[in-house]
């Protein structure tokens, strides 16, 4: 029996640690800048890119036959000589296709040039590692692999590679600064401030129309004001846009000259470059620098290029904020409900039925809660009650009538409510009756006893409920897809103006789903999926550890030895 029980535990642990180990290894390795290799395939295609993994496979007779039809007897002979085995590598390179879809492909050893001489060592014979091979991360178009051939600044071209690289690094600082100014003008001044002001004026005009009547003096005045402001803002926008364009033009004068795998020289303007890494030259220390830099970008930046590059900060922010909001709702609500069930309600059949019902609620599939949240919170409470009452001037445009972080946190609160109620009830039941009696004997009322004795004593147990709720709620994705999680959210739900409970938000769990299954180049997104998963796990663990820490503090305070 001891072997059976111990074996089950070992198997469970193996699966947990296996899963976490896989996620951790893959997740942590994503940002390491691996070497760039160049090789030619048998068909004469030149590939320049990074190896993202390899596997050995054993070919069956059928597959060998097929291979012979395609590639000829020599290739098959080479495979047979290797014991029917061949190794294949996943290579990420932008030059496989002209579009940057499916930038990752498998290459078998027998596909390499010169492989007919024997598969053993074919890879090492086929590849070369160009010294000045660059991995270029671009803002708009994703990765680019190429060999540095020069640097153009204005009309002068520097062809000495060391000097060209130095010139590129020197121009980086200037261009980055210009880009920051440009981003502020386009993103914040035009994209946020001016358009918000214009929209506010229009909305207030509509509000006046609703309050004072269409065509009233006040309405006309408000419309005139809005139009005036709109015109002013349009003018201002034009000026700012011109300013931004000047900045952009001024900074677009420098470019990297890079030869791609087909031998053509491309010009990549420094303006478009996020990061260029001479991957075969930087060494371990340099690679470490790039690694740290990429992690920082991942943690604090906005995503780029259909979420496949850049950071996930809005998703981290959304996840943490959502979980905290959920806690603020579910813990008080759940504790009050449990207090009623355990302390006030007359124990009997009805209370038992309620208790069973609450427990069963925990087994309802989470998507059902999502559907409920969408129907009840978004459409009914938001769309039918709040919007017509408080935001009639928005017309048909939903404010609270669509998904938003408030509805999402309420939906998650409903989802995790049973967990909190059950844990709290158990904690309340575990408070010794002698303590309650002692309190009553001192002349305390029921509420005083609950507030001063029962609740503090039950607090560690309530915290357990909260920790379980976080564990359940933070990793939940399915209901969020219906009530407000977005692929890309324009603005954070919490900013200098305060909390915007109606705003949609990004969420790490949804981000994983989106990267892995909705992305235009899911092969290339796989490493990011692992990294994002790792991050989500770490965040959930961190939230849980915070709860555990608070709980242990409370335990020390309220339930020391002997009680």
């Amino acid at each position, binding site marked *: 029996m001891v072997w059976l029980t111990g074996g089950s535990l070992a198997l469970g642990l193996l699966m947990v640690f296996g899963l976490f180990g896989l996620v951790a290894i893959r997740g942590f390795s994503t940002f390491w800048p691996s070497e760039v290799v160049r090789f030619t395939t048998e068909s004469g295609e030149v590939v320049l890119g990074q190896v993202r993994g390899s596997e050995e496979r054993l070919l069956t007779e059928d597959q060998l036959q097929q291979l012979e039809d395609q590639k000829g007897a020599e290739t098959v002979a080479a495979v047979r000589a290797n014991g029917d085995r061949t190794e294949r590598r996943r290579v990420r390179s932008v030059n496989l296709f002209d579009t940057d879809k499916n930038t990752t492909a498998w290459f078998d050893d027998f596909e390499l040039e010169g492989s007919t001489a024997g598969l053993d060592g074919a890879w090492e014979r086929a590849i070369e590692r160009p010294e000045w091979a660059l991995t270029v991360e671009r803002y708009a178009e994703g990765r680019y692999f190429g060999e540095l051939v020069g640097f153009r600044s204005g009309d002068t071209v520097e062809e000495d590679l060391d000097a060209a690289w130095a010139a590129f690094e020197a121009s980086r600082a200037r261009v980055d600064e210009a880009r920051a100014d440009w981003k502020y003008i386009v993103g914040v001044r035009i994209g946020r401030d001016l358009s918000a002001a214009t929209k506010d004026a229009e909305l207030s005009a509509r509000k006046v129309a609703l309050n004072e009547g269409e065509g009233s003096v006040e309405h006309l005045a408000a419309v005139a004001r809005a139009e005036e402001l709109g015109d002013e803002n349009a003018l201002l926008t034009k000026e700012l846009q011109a300013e931004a364009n000047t900045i952009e033009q001024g900074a677009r004068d420098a470019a990297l000259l890079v030869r791609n795998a087909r031998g053509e020289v491309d010009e990549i303007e420094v303006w478009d470059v996020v990061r260029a890494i001479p991957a075969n030259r930087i060494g371990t220390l340099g690679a470490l620098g790039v690694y740290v830099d990429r992690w920082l970008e991942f943690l604090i930046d906005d995503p780029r290029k259909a979420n496949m590059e850049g950071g996930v900060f809005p998703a981290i922010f959304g996840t943490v904020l959502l979980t905290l909001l959920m806690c603020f709702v579910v813990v008080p609500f759940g504790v009050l409900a449990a207090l009623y069930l355990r302390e006030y309600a*007359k124990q009997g059949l009805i209370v038992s039925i309620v208790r069973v019902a609450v427990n069963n609620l925990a087994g309802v599939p989470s998507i059902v809660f999502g559907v409920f949240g969408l129907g009840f919170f978004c459409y009914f409470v938001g769309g039918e009650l709040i919007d017509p009452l408080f935001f009639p001037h928005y017309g048909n445009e939903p404010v609270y009538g669509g998904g938003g972080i408030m509805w999402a946190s309420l939906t998650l609160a409903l989802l995790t409510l049973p967990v909190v109620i059950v844990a709290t009830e158990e904690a309340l039941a575990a408070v*010794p009756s*002698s*303590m*309650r*009696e*002692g*309190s*009553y*004997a*001192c*002349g*305390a*009322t029921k509420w*005083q006893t609950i507030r*001063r*004795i029962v609740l*503090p*004593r039950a607090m560690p147990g309530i915290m357990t409920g909260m920790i379980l709720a976080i564990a359940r709620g933070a990793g939940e994705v399915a209901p969020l897809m219906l009530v407000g999680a977005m692929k890309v959210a324009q603005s954070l739900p919490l900013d200098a103006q305060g909390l915007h409970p109606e705003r949609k938000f990004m969420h790490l769990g949804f981000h994983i789903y989106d990267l892995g299954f909705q992305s235009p180049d899911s092969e290339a997104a796989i490493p990011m999926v692992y990294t994002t998963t790792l991050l989500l796990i770490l965040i959930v663990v961190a939230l849980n550890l915070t709860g555990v820490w608070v709980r242990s503090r409370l335990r*020390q*305070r*309220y*339930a*020391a*030895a*002997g*009680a």
Partner: protein
Amino acid sequence: MNEPPTTRPAVQGTVRPDDVRSVFDAVSKGEAFETCVHPEVAEEDAVLEVSDFDLWYGEKRALYQIGMRVPVGKVTALIGPSGCGKSTLLRCVNRMNDLIDSVRIEGDMRLSGDGIYGPKVDVIELRKRIGMVFQKPNPFPMSIFENVIYSLRIDGERNRTVLDEVCERSLRGAGLWDEVKDRLQDSALALSGGQQQRLCIARAIAAEPEVLLLDEPCSALDPIATGRIEDLIEELKGAYSILMVTHNMQQASRASDYTAFMYLGRMIEFGPTESIFLRPELQETEDYVTGRFG
């Protein structure tokens, strides 16, 4: 109870031979009988008066026609075999039995002349006039200081000077001050069992109760801690009127001024402790206090 009394009661002759066990016979047959009350009891002023008090747990009757007067400033012990209703009677005084749904009572109980039961009685106010210490120490999950001043806290007292004063006075009264004065803000749950029980006594006397109820206060303590609590009861006598339930016959004889013997929900005999232990009126009482039965 296991130890025979040092002197045999010299009052053998006062018990009529045909009365032997007649009370228990009456009890077992369910017949009415008069509680044997010694005349000394009537001479004392009573803080608590109980008359014709009955109690039922659902269908089961637990107390029968209890009548007793708890003297002011004295220690009164309730003794009797397990299940005889001692604790039930004690818990009726501060209406702790209200917490049990199935309990029904009849009869009258008065604290300093005010009715304890009755539709107009404010139970919360009533309990503030009565201190209670339980069988198992039950300190609250808070600091020693907060434990002692709990009854003032729930009344909303905020004056720090008052609170400090009450805390020190109560802890001194409970003989705990010197041990804990330097760590009043520590958790009360870290104290030893005996200290916890004395803390509970300090908590009970903080509100200056008119009567102090002790429900087997030493049964969960070791002999040394028990000795200290007994000394404490001796010191509290006079300042407080104490009604105490005990299983320990020696404790009753050492610590109390008056003793009431209960059996099967009836009060059999009530009188000065010395009389009850040395010269009981009834054979049944003598049998119980000498350990021949029970």
